[in-house]
């Protein structure tokens, strides 16, 4: 065991944790964005992540596992998820924004149940797997640790998504309105903005992040039913730690989860399973509304 504590192993493990945090961040930021702007605790977010993974597989397979198919899947899957979420928002959600949070939560739970079974109807229960393009296969030796190239790729994608999100929320008119709506819905309505469509696009954006997360994760795991359950609880724990509705809170929460869990595996492997829950309990005990400012 003494060799596991070397600095190199620690750094390698740290990088692995960071790459894991990137997927978590992409999914959790979408959840948090929806929580912030629409005040909807979207339990169906996990199902959309799963659909993203299945759709990515379908697209990649349709293009015969050609490397271009992988990139088409990374773009196409979020779009498919975006389409589904737009339909759900326009047909169902928008009639419910005035309801209590508990109703919205149960509503999205119902949606999650439906989407889960629809996924099964469409794609069946078999395990699936996507092959990344050749240059992302295999591993690189970083400080004596074999790091999969794909994880290094994720380390580039994560920050890119974070920057894109920041640009959208801080620099565009849509982002500004969405942030204002998060603070005071009536005021935004009062200054004559068509809030309904702002909400719709905010919802779609958040859901597309779930789809992107699902697509990105698909080469590293087997795509199966039940993926939704695992991710949704983790994503909710992350946004709670960070502060509900705060995208940067989702980033902090994801990094905390990814890195600590990854280093925890090295030091206290038996502790890894309880860590996320314990982290929520400890953080909420001392900071009752999460680490960063929450709109809830």
């Amino acid at each position, binding site marked *: 065991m003494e060799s596991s504590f070397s600095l190199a192993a620690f750094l*390698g493990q740290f990088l692995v944790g960071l790459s*894991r945090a990137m997927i978590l961040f992409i999914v959790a930021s979408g959840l948090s964005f929806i929580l912030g702007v629409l005040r909807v605790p979207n339990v169906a977010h996990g199902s959309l992540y799963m659909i993203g993974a299945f759709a990515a597989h379908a697209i990649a397979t349709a293009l015969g596992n050609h490397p271009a198919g992988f990139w088409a899947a990374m773009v196409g899957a979020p779009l498919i998820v975006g389409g589904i979420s737009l339909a759900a928002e326009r047909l169902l959600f928008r009639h419910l924004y005035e309801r209590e949070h508990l109703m919205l939560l149960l509503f999205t739970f119902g949606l999650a149940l439906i989407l889960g079974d629809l996924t099964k109807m469409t794609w069946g229960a*078999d*395990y699936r797997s996507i092959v990344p393009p050749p240059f992302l296969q295999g591993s690189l030796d970083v400080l004596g640790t074999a790091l999969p190239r794909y994880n290094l790729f994720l380390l580039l994608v994560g920050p890119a998504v974070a920057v894109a999100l920041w640009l959208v929320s801080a620099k565009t008119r849509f982002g500004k309105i969405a942030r204002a709506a998060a603070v005071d819905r009536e005021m935004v309505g009062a200054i004559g903005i068509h809030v309904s469509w702002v909400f719709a696009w905010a919802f779609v954006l958040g859901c597309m992040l779930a789809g992107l997360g699902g697509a990105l994760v698909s080469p590293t795991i087997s795509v199966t039913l039940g993926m939704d359950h*695992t991710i949704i609880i983790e994503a909710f724990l992350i946004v709670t730690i960070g502060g509900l509705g705060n995208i940067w809170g989702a980033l902090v929460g994801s990094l905390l989860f990814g890195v600590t869990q990854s280093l925890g595996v090295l030091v206290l*492997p038996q502790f890894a399973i309880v860590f996320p829950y314990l982290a929520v309990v400890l953080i909420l005990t001392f900071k009752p509304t999460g680490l960063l400012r929450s709109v809830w």
Partner: protein
Amino acid sequence: MKSQGFISRGLVGVLAAAVVVAGITGGAEARNIKVGIVDTYSGPPAVFGNDALNGFKMAVEEINRQGILGGKIEFVTRDDKFKVDIGLNMAKELALKENVDVIVGVVNSGVALAISDAVAKKEKIPFFTWMGKSANITGKAGHRYVFSTTENTAMATKAAATVLARKPFLRIWVAGDDYEYGHALDDSFTHYLKQLRPEVEFLGRTWWKLGEPDLVPYFTSIQAAKPDLVHFCTGGASMANVLKTIQATGLHRNTAIYIHTAIDYAVLKPLGLNAPEGVMGTMDYLFYYPEMSSHQKFVKDFQARYKTPPGFPAYHAFLTAQFIAEGFRKAGKIDREAFIDALEGLKVDSPVGKVEMRACDHQAVLPIYFGTTRLSQEHQAAVAADILTLRGAEVMPTCEEVLGARK
């Protein structure tokens, strides 16, 4: 009065529910043999449930062409959703309302143990598990009314330990899914390997939660310890995650790896030609081995019907149907106790040869195949190569051991 109104109306509702319950319950005795299947048809384990059902259907059609005791086998299916309470609920419905003669199925060992105790033992209904892999089912928790037509964790790991004890692996690391199945594999493999080769050293253990999406952090910590052999205790969907991570990190290039069911086609097929080569695994059924004519015919028929080769659940279910048919034929009447007596020591034909139902513990005597993954252009996937066959009698705990554990 408002609240009283609620109470009385509520109770009217409850009573109405009782009437509905009464309406859907109550059944009739039939001359056909009625088999109730409780299995998982939703969620990830549905892969197993569906495959098993296909194998069972195929066998039943064949059996019904001849008939049994002047009747046929008919069956009903119930989805347990991989949940113990629902599984119990469904098994009780089959036993108490549908009046089935036999209950079969169950992927989830927890469900199998619950049904075995609360339904099979209590209601005296024969129960076959064709997928529940806990050695406890026919071991510690076994009894007259429970049968297993699948290999279990003890058999698989004893087979693996027998082979691996002959190889130069001394420093061993264990990693796997943090749930009962994973721990059962670890306990039993460790037990047998230490017995056969006391000088082996277990360096450490890594457990991740079931469904953990990213295993790389766990792998990097294993690599740092440089073991000779890693025993991964995993199965189902997370098996594919493990294989993918092995391929991505290249762990198999400098470390030997053993995983029970790693040579399962259902696991290897989705990975295609991107599966890691050289991973050692055990299985009690491979559709391409052994190459005997009865087996090839079975596989061909199955593929013609379902467009996919049979997996081990299909084989187990097929075998179970044979045991049910032959058991009742031998008993000569539709009687549960006579059926059980007939089953004990019964040998039936299966596509890969005769299989015996061991009398002492009601465990089917199945061979275990030990193989190593190798890419096959023909299958466009990895398959098992260098297959060693370990006979059931070699790998099963002895009757004395089992009966001792039951006390």
